[in-house]
């Protein structure tokens, strides 16, 4: 009972998944979509168990002050932080306007005379401003254009003007507006785009860019060195097989680097040939063999022959 029911259930699901491939009927298609979604949900919920397991494994080490317990703290801590900054906090306590436009009264005669309008900017100097064609920040602006306002500013041509204020890095709001200015008009662009939280938020992106990405890439890059040492240690022509492995490896190695073509133009051809013919031939054999094995394994599962994972001792 406790064993046969799950097995039967599995057989049902498995056989359906196989049949589904051969039945183009739309009703079946729709059902399959559902079933596949369930799989995703189950897999995702497992992360809760994963988290529990993580604590189960690391917490005792910390409590018992085992060697390296400090690093376990780092592990749990960074996990917690990264998870928390991933939450959209801002949406929890409401958002604020990234900026606003404030037209100043009266034309500025000087500007009017040489047919210009003025945009004053009230923003921190790390805000990237796109005023019409120019992209700049308050640091690189004129100190003053008119006695009307002490704010840094730029002269612009009359007509429709698109204003954009954001920050150079991801994770901030952007303020965007179009205004229509005539010569002599003055407008103040006040902008201080707020920081976003959550998936595309500032913190998460920062940690991703400066902790996750470098570690990830460097871990991977270690392989460049391991490959060298593996080559030194393991690629020794002990027998025919090893010798062949070595030979083709060296040929492809040379051909892969630009130097290969420099040595002889037929080297890349040779390596391509090895790849297309010899490599593909044997590779195809493995692909097919593995596919057969995989299908047989799959069949044994869905036909209920293999049931060790469900407590049935097969």
């Amino acid at each position: 009972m406790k064993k046969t029911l799950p097995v039967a259930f599995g057989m049902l699901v498995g056989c359906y998944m196989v049949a589904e491939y051969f039945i183009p009927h739309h009703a079946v298609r729709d059902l399959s979509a559902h079933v596949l979604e369930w799989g995703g949900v189950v897999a995702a919920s497992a992360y809760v168990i994963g988290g529990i397991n993580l604590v189960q494994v690391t917490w005792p080490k910390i409590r018992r002050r085992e060697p390296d317990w400090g690093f376990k703290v780092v592990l749990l801590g960074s996990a917690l932080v990264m998870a928390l900054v991933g939450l959209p906090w801002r949406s929890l306590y409401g958002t604020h306007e990234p900026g606003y436009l404030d037209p100043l009264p009266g034309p500025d005669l000087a500007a009017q005379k040489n047919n210009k309008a003025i945009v004053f900017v009230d923003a921190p100097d790390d805000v990237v401003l796109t005023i019409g064609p120019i992209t700049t920040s308050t640091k690189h602006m004129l100190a003053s254009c008119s006695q009307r306002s002490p704010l840094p500013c730029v002269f612009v041509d009359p007509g429709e003007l698109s204003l954009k204020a954001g920050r150079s890095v991801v994770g901030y709001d952007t303020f965007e507006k179009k205004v229509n200015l005539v010569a002599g008009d003055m407008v103040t662009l006040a902008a201080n785009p707020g920081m976003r939280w959550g998936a595309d938020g500032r913190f998460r992106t920062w940690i991703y860019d400066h902790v996750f990405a470098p570690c990830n890439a460097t871990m991977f890059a270690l392989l460049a060195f391991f490959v060298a040492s593996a080559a030194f240690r393991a690629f020794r022509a002990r027998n025919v097989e090893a010798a062949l492995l070595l030979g083709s490896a060296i040929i492809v190695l040379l051909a892969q680097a630009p130097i290969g073509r420099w040595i002889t133009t037929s080297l890349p051809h040779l390596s391509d040939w090895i790849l297309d013919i010899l490599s593909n031939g044997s590779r195809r054999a493995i692909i097919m063999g593995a596919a057969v094995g995989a299908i047989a394994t799959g069949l044994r599962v869905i036909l209920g022959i293999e049931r060790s994972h469900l407590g049935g001792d097969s």
Partner: protein
Amino acid sequence: MTDVATIDIIGAWVGIFLTMCILSFLYGDNPFYKLGEHLFIGVSIGYIVVVQFRNNFYVKFDRDLTWWDLAPAALVAMMFVKFASKQLVWLGRFPLAFVIALYAGQSITGLVGSDLGDQIKTASRSLVVHKIDLQTAGANELSNVPGVSPAIATKLAAERKDHPFESLDDALTRPSLTDSERADLADERGVLVGTDARATAAGGRNQIDWFGVASQVLLLIALLTGLLYFYFSIAHKGAIGRVSRVGVWILMIGFGASFGYTVQGRIALAIARAQDVRGKFMSPHDAAQIHGEVAAIVSAVIIIAGIWLFGRHEKRHRAGATPPAEAS
């Protein structure tokens, strides 16, 4: 042109420091590597958990629920039963049975289509290989001729319209080709796998590429011997043994090739790290503000000094301590 925020300059330095921490694994297991390792693992977990929940619950169930949704709910519930009750643990087998059967069934049909069907289809092609006829070939086919770039292909197509090619030499030295293009084409000449083997300017009657034919035969042999090697029902003795040995040889050549390719990839990674530290992937303006090289040197010094100090510290504390494990 705007400046990089201070926090991001710091970030860049942190990134470079962590890069060095992990590289220090090459010297041996040490506190700096452990720091990088645990930080990395922790961050990755925190990252994934959010992603998983966002995409499987927040996004998917951002709609009014239906009766269908009871099914996954039930499965999930059963998965958690083991925390609640001891004698109901067996319920946990249902979600297990579900996912395993689901994915097993799915891969059966996925594999039978692509890895069996299509591979069989591809494998059973005619052994006869005809040369590419520069006179009639289409643009794509043309650019499969060694050394023929898309640009050259279009030129050839134009050339042959005006006056047909008499020979390969004629075709590959037409006036509209630039000298560098001619040089490229000249490099690719060759009777086995080069232009002469792969292409013809004869027009009309299609010539056979004999080396191509031989290769196709070899391809077939490689496949069959390979299959034989994986044939379990007979011992590899005598004739069978010798043939399957050939299979192994070809297998090994294949592995060698893929090793060669892999090396390229791996070294590329290290190169990219170096380029990254130099700020190659960002605008020169930003790179100038970050001084990646300086950061790298500073971090390297800190780490080397640190490892040395820790080493001494270890020794003083427990005499006869084992030196950091060499990792290679």
